[in-house]
């Protein structure tokens, strides 16, 4: 059975996606599949997606880690604060 995952995009990613994207996955699946799915949706975003990190529950997760629940995902482009 597929789970629906809410993905939030920030900053420069919003040139390519809405701030909220909904994806469906059969869990468990590696977080990197979220980025791969988004690349399919908009291939122009490949470069920026390759530079992004993924956060869940306000902590970074490894791309290779397994997503086992439908917790919302946050795609974090390179920081440019300060």
């Amino acid at each position, binding site marked *: 059975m597929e789970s629906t995952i809410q993905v*939030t995009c*920030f*900053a*420069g990613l919003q*040139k390519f996606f809405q701030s909220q994207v909904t994806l469906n996955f059969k869990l468990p699946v590696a977080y990197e599949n979220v980025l791969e799915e988004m690349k399919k949706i908009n291939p122009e975003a490949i470069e920026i997606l390759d*530079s992004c*990190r993924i*956060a869940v529950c*306000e*902590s*970074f997760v*490894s*791309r290779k880690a397994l997503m086992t629940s439908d917790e919302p995902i*946050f795609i*974090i*482009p*390179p*920081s*440019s*604060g*300060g």
Partner: protein
Amino acid sequence: MKHISHTPIYYADLFSDFRDPNSGAVVLFSGEVRDNNKGKAVTHLEYEAYEPMAEKMITEILETATLKWQLNKAVCVHRVGPVSICGCAIVVITGSGHRAAAYEANRYIIDRVKNEVPIWKHEFFADGTSEWGQNCDCSSPSHPDHQHKHEHNHAE
């Protein structure tokens, strides 16, 4: 204290509140908005943050710096929303018994916040274009600050 502010940062007020009888040295860094970048005139900046995570990460960075340099106090506040030219985008204040620790800790905090915390700069130019800021380029060989060493890992 909240580390993300939607309203202007008045660092003189923060500095006054910061005084501590144990601190012989207080260093204040203010990151301010320049009117130019890469040869283009800048009209203003807008900052966006993933606020819950930014708050959490800045808290952790301040705690780490306080422990490492035995600071008496450490503060960091970053703006979100529009910031005009000469406006304060971020302030970092560190206080310790002696100046070396206050300076080093201040540099450590601003470097980590700029490079790690999910906050993004959107630059607006006089020619009507705009651009999302890129990651800190201070580790590039051409940058005058190339010699400083990041103590964190960019690769996640």
